[in-house]
């Protein structure tokens, strides 16, 4: 068990810098998820922690000890790969035992650990099979088992579920979460899927272009994204953005005006913006709902899923918005609709993309329809 600390971690390939001085502390026992679009450096960061990539600059501490120059195996980590990376010529049992044989563990103890991991991961019937005789989910469980038997200080997962189908992904998600609860180790998990991040993480680290955009608890990231990137990345469907002008502010928030001069309110701290500044108002699809007093839009498409509905609309100024409604709706394609944009749900971002602090959180105020 250990805390993982990154201090100014840099990765360079020749003259190209792909990770720009990352500082991050992952507390002991935390399930930490690195999330971001492809090419954001999340896998590179994980592989540097694992020891599979050299660290070009900065310090990596595990359990308070600087491990930059230690080989992967010496760092006391175990990794689960996206492609499982099982030894194809070995049986499941041999796959699980291989790493333990490397450290010359007594045979009886290896057997005990393998059996325990197999029981925990329900692999007992497959112990003598080769990986090619297993399904994707079973292979992934073997890969996890291989990490488990080594009883590492930290587990590393590199997009472990992306090769599985959707249904299996959900159940494996549960298994990994259960594993974390049971062993309680620090886990670092890389994914590009924000749903995985939201559902599993104690702490999410959003990365873009080799930099941390925001790190924190999932719900904090949802509620208080620090910029448009995090706001757009966390939450599904994406947050809607509406270009506005500041027309004034008071203790309750900002007064805004869209391109057609229609007034809007946002419960944010507007002291750092001035009248006439261009800003973007952000509103999550699930926070917009029909309201006769609301903002007028043209309905371009409706998706009825029975328990929920999606509205794809366009404002009079031509901005595309999405609304996520619970239940069913009578609105039809081509019709006109009015959607409420309530101040306590509104986010406001400056021209440089950074967010203004929210004064009220509608999410915490109970029913959104009052």
């Amino acid at each position, binding site marked *: 068990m250990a805390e993982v600390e990154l201090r100014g971690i840099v990765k360079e390939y020749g003259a190209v810098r792909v990770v720009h001085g990352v500082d991050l502390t992952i507390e002991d026992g935390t399930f930490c998820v690195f999330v971001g679009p492809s090419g954001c450096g999340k896998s590179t960061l994980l592989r540097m922690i694992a020891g599979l990539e050299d660290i070009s600059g900065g310090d990596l501490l595990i359990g308070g000890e600087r491990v930059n120059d230690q080989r992967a195996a010496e760092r006391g980590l175990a990794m689960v790969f996206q492609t499982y990376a099982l*030894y*194809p010529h070995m049986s499941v049992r041999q796959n699980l035992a291989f790493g333990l044989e*490397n450290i010359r563990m007594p045979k009886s103890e290896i057997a005990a650990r393998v059996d325990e991991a197999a029981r925990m991961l329900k692999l007992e019937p497959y112990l003598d099979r080769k990986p090619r005789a297993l399904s994707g989910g079973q292979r992934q469980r073997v890969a996890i088992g291989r990490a488990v038997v080594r009883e590492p200080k930290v587990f590393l997962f590199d997009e472990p579920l992306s090769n599985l189908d959707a249904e299996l992904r959900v159940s494996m998600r549960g298994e990994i979460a259960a594993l974390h609860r049971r062993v309680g180790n620090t886990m670092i998990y890389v994914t590009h899927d924000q749903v995985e991040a939201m559902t599993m993480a104690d702490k999410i680290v959003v990365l873009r272009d080799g930099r941390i955009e925001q790190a924190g608890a999932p719900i904090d990231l949802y509620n208080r994204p620090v910029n448009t990137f995090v706001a757009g990345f966390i939450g599904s469907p994406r947050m809607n953005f509406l270009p506005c002008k500041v027309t004034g502010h008071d203790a309750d928030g900002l007064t805004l005006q869209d391109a057609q001069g229609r007034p809007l309110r946002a419960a944010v701290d507007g002291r750092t913006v001035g009248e006439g500044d261009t800003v973007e108002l952000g509103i999550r699809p699930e926070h917009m709902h029909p309201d006769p007093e609301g903002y007028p839009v043209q309905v371009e498409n409706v998706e009825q899923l029975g328990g929920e509905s999606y509205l794809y609309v366009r404002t009079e100024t031509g901005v595309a918005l999405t609304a996520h409604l619970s239940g069913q709706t009578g609105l039809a394609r081509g019709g006109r609709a009015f959607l409420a944009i309530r101040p306590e749900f509104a986010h406001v971002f400056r021209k440089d993309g950074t967010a203004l602090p929210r004064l009220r959180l509608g999410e915490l105020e109970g029913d959104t329809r009052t």
Partner: protein
Amino acid sequence: MAAIVRALYEGAFNLFEKPMQMLQYSLGAHRMAWVFLLPNLLIFGLFTYLPILLNVWYAGTSGDRILLGERDWTGAANFATLLDCGSYLDPNTCRRDLFWRAVHNTGWFVVLQVGFMILLSLIAALILNRNIPLKGFFRAVFFYPVLLSPVVVALIWKWILQRNGVLNAGLDWAGMPTVNWLLDPSWAFFWIVFVSIWANMGFYVLILLAGLQSIPSDVYEAAEMDGTPAWRSLLRITLPLLTPTLLVVMVLSLIRAVQAFDEIYVLTGGGPGSATTLLIQYIYDVGFATRPRQFGLAAAASLLMAGVLLVLTLLQLAATRKRAEDG
């Protein structure tokens, strides 16, 4: 330009479409397959199967005439002559001692050449598979001899190994005693093994490199995370995963070693004495070089060799199939 080519190409197809349709209509789709197979069957029949049949026939005849009608049918007499031995381990007890010397030489040659070539190719491939400087250059160096004609290879080495050759000049310059490399039976045998490894290993290095590169890198990363020492990674991961490729390489090189002839014939002429005479050369000597030509005996010897090659080829097919299944 492209349009013209395209028009011609399509025109050619249209030209064939009608007659082919009519042919298919009259023959049925099933028999149509034979129409497409026919050209190949004819070529194979004429240049492969017919000569094999003729070879079998020749093996059952004696005399120095070429026309089969003028040859005497002797049945298995040629095989009996070849196989007439007091002990197969001592060629001197055999009626055709030179045949058995050639068999023994070929056996040793195959074992040594294939054994060392696979070992050296594997080492070379393992080194070339790492990130060493000038990797491309060294790959080219290993592969280059494969592009040379066997005769050129032999002449290059003859130039190096002959009495006044480069090697002896070097030894002389270094104050070491010179050796007449190709006139001493043991040295001559060493050199034909060496030269044929030199000439052929690039090909196998290439196959092994491909095999090494087809091993997913994440398996090595997993091994790295498992704290696997390098030697154990080689023994427990690289070699097992390379086994199908190694098997293919082994059988291919076995077949080629049994068939070895050209570079050795040019380098040593099978000498000194019969020290480097391999099977193919024996067949060539008996059938064509010495007079009168003993076609029947040569044909019989080549059939015996074909039997060995058939076994090796079946092994290769089995190995390839296994590789396909594992892959």
